[in-house]
């Protein structure tokens, strides 16, 4: 990589926008990733990001402009229609959720691509930014985009703060929540909508194909480090932000480097490290604990053998077919050794 001057973040207009945009993306998607993971809606990100494409294009066709807000709204509507169709299919037929998701994902996206190909054949350069939605292109982020994303992001975070206990309760025990009189359906719709919004906000940065990682990974990583919901959400947002900024910086300074993949690699690395090394839950620590436990167990068994053998010094001189009651099976070689050691 070329030599990199950190002050560029503040001085260079493009890089500043890119980094800010990635920061917002990371925080918003990270926060909602925590909820998505807890509510077992992990793959919603994948489905929604693909389903959003026709929404974006139709919004563009209607408004004629590549402004962020209408495109966001279009993406959201398409995302919601996709969710409704999925729910309809799983509720009314024997088709399971994974097939419903795959269906909506591929058909909507295919439809979107067909639309896109039609749009790109139309005169006018306004649509050029649309294919950035495929893989994300940070460099295309302008100040207006960042402002919109930031406003949406603030709205999302505010809603989470306001409805904190409601979201917590429906994520943990929806039926009980209903008996308390909580408007469970409303809250469910709201939270799912926020997840859709998070997906849509991130699309331009990370691209359709990779958005799923941003809705799954931060939450999975954060869960390994804490048992407290508040901390988990904060960590998740931080991880998202870190990955976002890393990806944005690397892609805007290196040649020909698309943003999405770098962000995804960054967050994947965070997940791997978290899974392996997080205190308590980390896989490495558990492995060590297991080995230790096994070591302790072996030591205990060995001690038992010594004790048992010391109580029957004549074992090795008994004929083989004499029944000898022993708590743990002992090889004759071992008992001979033990006897040798413990000879009074």
């Amino acid at each position, binding site marked *: 990589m070329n030599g990199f001057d950190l002050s560029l973040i503040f001085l260079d207009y493009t890089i500043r926008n890119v980094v800010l945009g990635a920061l917002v993306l990371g925080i918003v998607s990270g926060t909602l990733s925590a909820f998505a993971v*807890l509510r*077992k809606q992990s793959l919603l990100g994948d489905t929604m990001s693909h389903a959003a494409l026709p929404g974006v294009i139709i919004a563009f066709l209607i408004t004629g402009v590549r402004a962020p807000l209408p495109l966001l709204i279009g993406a959201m509507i398409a995302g919601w229609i996709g969710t409704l169709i999925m729910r309809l299919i799983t509720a009314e037929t024997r088709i399971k959720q994974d097939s419903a998701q795959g269906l909506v994902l591929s058909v909507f996206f295919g439809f979107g691509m067909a639309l896109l190909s039609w749009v790109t054949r139309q005169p006018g350069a306004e649509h050029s930014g649309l294919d950035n939605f495929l893989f994300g292109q940070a460099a295309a982020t302008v100040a207006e985009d960042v402002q919109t994303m930031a406003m949406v992001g603030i709205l999302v975070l505010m809603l989470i703060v*306001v*409805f*904190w*206990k*409601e979201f*917590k*309760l429906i*994520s*943990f*025990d929806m*039926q*009980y*929540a*209903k*008996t*308390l*009189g*909580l408007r469970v359906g409303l809250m469910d719709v709201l939270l799912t909508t926020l997840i859709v919004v998070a997906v849509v906000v991130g699309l331009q940065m990370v691209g359709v194909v990779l958005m799923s990682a941003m809705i799954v990974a931060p939450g999975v990583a954060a*869960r390994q480090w*804490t*048992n*407290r*919901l508040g*901390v*988990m959400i904060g960590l998740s947002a931080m991880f998202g932000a870190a990955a976002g900024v890393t990806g944005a910086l690397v892609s805007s300074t290196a040649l020909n480097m698309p943003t999405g993949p770098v962000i995804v690699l960054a967050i994947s690395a965070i997940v791997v490290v978290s899974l392996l090394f997080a205190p308590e839950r980390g896989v490495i620590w558990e492995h060590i604990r297991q080995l230790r436990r096994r070591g302790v167990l072996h030591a205990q068994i060995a001690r038992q053998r010594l004790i048992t053998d010391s109580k029957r010094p004549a074992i090795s001189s008994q004929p083989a077919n004499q029944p000898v009651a022993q708590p743990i099976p002992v090889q004759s070689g071992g008992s001979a050794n033990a006897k040798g050691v413990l000879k009074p």
Partner: protein
Amino acid sequence: MVTKNANNIPLVIEDLTVAYREEPVLWDVDLTVPQGALMAIVGPNGAGKSTLIKAALDLVDKAAGRVTIYGKPYAEQRQMVAYVPQRGSVDWDFPTNALDVVTMGRYGRLGWIKRPTKSDRQIAYESLVKVGMESFAQRQISQLSGGQQQRVFLARALAQDAQLYIMDEPFQGVDATTEKAIITVLKDLQANGRTVLVVHHDLETVPEYFDHVLLLNVKAIASGRVDEVFTPENLRATYGSRVDALIRQGVEA
């Protein structure tokens, strides 16, 4: 017959019918739960026991029938009722501790947006004490045993300070200590004038734990005081012939 002056009866169910696809799960069920009763709902698998209480709590749709709590529809009386669902209905790997789960029982009184107050947390803590779980207050719930989780659920309901407690198989798969702890709490509630309705799976303990019982198998076979209604004939009518083995073990009124 519509009981219009039932303002002092905790739960009245009339003509309740619930269907799932082709088959009726509950058919024309009537039930009156008297004030201060400690009542068990028993019946074979698929008898509709859980469905009965879920229908009473508006958690499933009714094909027909009416449910009143102290004379009014359930929707108007939520504060009077506390629900203890089956343990398996949640994912216990959720990042939170026991005290927090119990505090959730206060959310109904708080209404929208407001946060639990110190007094709410105090009440939650005291509920944990009542079920003997106070030392686990800060413990992550996934680290709790099955019996401990059950007690946390019970504490959550206690924190609601309701008049009528409805529980779904609270004794399922818990150790003996927990079972004793739970039944002590239930009898305590009864002594304090509350009413308790429990979906129960173990016929043997019915006479010991409960004073009222509903025998259910899609239809209500019999309901009333245990010493009057928990008879071999009624049991046979509810469970079929295999209950004879149970009867031989001495399960009689």
